[in-house]
């Protein structure tokens, strides 16, 4: 090995090359600055906050309270069940903390596909015609069932079932028109007639648009995870989903796990709305949610004024447009 390591000319040439490299003028994105500086301000605003001794390279200790830790455990379990294609166990006895903060018109974030009687979804279900949810429960993966809790906000959303030609669509139209009986007939039909596989996507969309509540317990059959993954992916991050994943608000110094109910609502509110985008610039001070596996971020959500932006490890990023009230309700359910 030669000893030209410290040759000034050589060093200077390499430094010059480094200075002119294409990334030489790159700076950290503005949103990172906003979050980091905000974190610094928060830390100085905490009087007497004794910090643990830090070593070089010491690992960051998340500063969650007991409730945060509990919520993380619950959420992790929930995601694990989704990943396995199981129906999450009833959890409605203890609604997530964000439920109480949700505005009155916001949907009750019913825990994932919990048995219907446990939540406030039941009265809604009685008023509204149940439609294709049962079909969906019979055909679609549990992952989809998990988000079948009613979402009144979606009643005002642009109908996503316009292309659906099955009875579920009829039921949805009837519901919108107040024709309860017609919808009930449709529901019976939906229950009795096995739906061919190609109709699943339509039924699924119709079920989403219809706020009919969770499927009857008898119809909730465990579906293999493979079946769940074989259906059309309604969320761009679905393929990212794995057991043990966490979803947290950031910045890190104040990271907080997202509740199960919040995650459900995120799935429901944005379902079918995702569109790939090239413009991935997020504004400053936007709310950010991270999808984590251990310390690795698999993707991020940015909540802007009228859209949710998702960027995972693999391009392209995707946006879901939401109107203002829907976005506020979603943020409320998510706990921010």
């Amino acid at each position: 090995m030669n000893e030209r390591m410290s040759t000034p000319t050589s060093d200077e040439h390499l430094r010059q090359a480094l200075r002119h490299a294409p990334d030489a003028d790159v700076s950290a994105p503005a949103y990172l600055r906003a979050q980091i500086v905000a974190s610094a301000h928060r830390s100085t605003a905490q009087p007497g906050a004794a910090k643990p001794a830090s070593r070089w390279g010491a690992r960051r200790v998340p500063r969650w309270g007991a409730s945060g830790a509990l919520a993380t455990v619950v959420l992790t379990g929930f995601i694990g069940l989704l990943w396995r294609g199981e129906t999450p166990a009833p959890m409605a006895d203890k609604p997530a903390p964000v439920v109480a903060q949700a505005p009155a018109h916001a949907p009750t974030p019913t825990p994932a596909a919990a048995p219907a009687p446990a939540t406030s979804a039941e009265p809604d279900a009685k008023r509204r015609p149940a439609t294709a949810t049962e079909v969906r429960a019979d055909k679609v993966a549990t992952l989809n069932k998990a988000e079948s809790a009613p979402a009144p906000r979606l009643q005002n959303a642009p109908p996503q079932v316009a292309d659906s030609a099955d009875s579920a669509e009829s039921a949805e139209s009837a519901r919108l028109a107040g024709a309860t009986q017609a919808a009930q007939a449709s529901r019976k039909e939906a229950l009795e007639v096995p739906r061919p596989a190609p109709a699943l996507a339509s039924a699924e969309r119709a079920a989403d648009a219809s706020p009919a509540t969770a499927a009857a317990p008898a119809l909730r059959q465990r579906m293999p995870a493979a079946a769940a993954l074989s259906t059309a992916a309604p969320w761009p991050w679905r393929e990212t989903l794995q057991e043990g994943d966490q979803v947290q608000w950031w910045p890190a110094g104040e990271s907080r796990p997202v509740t199960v109910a919040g995650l459900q609502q995120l799935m429901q509110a944005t379902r079918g709305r995702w569109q790939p985008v090239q413009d991935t610039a997020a504004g400053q001070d936007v709310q950010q949610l991270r999808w984590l596996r251990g310390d690795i971020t698999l993707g991020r959500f940015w909540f802007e004024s009228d859209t949710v932006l998702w960027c995972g490890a693999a391009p392209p990023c995707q946006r879901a447009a939401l109107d203002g009230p829907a976005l506020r309700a979603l943020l409320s359910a998510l706990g921010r």
Partner: protein
Amino acid sequence: MSQPSDDQLMRAFAAGDAAAFEALYTRHQAALYRFVRRLLGAAAATQADEVFQDTWERAIQARHSWLPQGATWRTWLFTLAHHRAVDCLRKLGREVSVHSDEGDEGEPWEPEAAADAWAGWPAASAQAEDIFFWRAAGQRLLDCLEGLPVAQKTVFLLHHEDGLAVEEMARALELGFETAKTRLRYAMSKLRTCMGAYLPPKLST
């Protein structure tokens, strides 16, 4: 009026002056971001924001316990970033050898693109003022860095980008002096070969 040093700013931040932290951030963010991006390389580019943010968060959390340890605050910050980047690469399944020098002995390094491929380019000495030449050289150097093990890439970047002396680098990375020196030597040797015509002829062979 002279600017406050990094140490002074950090102490002020520890005392509750958030503006001092903003000054630190403004002063070092660009270099740190570049360092992180280059260290992670293209394969882990999506994690650059993550590592960068975590590094600053760690600095924030360490404000009460931070003390100068023989290195500058900037070196300390870059070392935090290095540790976090290595963690990240490991978790992404990228092989990060602690002893990156092993296996290099006696094995001539063959860059993906041989120096001959760049024979048509002007020699560095003749084109020193040519901005296009240096831009191309910078791109070439980034490509060459992709081929280096993380350990060698780290010492090269700290030495060339951040201007750290080998001794200071060894202390910051908790390496022996000879180890740090060896890593840098290997890195330089490989980069010299890879850079080919972008280095002065007498040094590029």
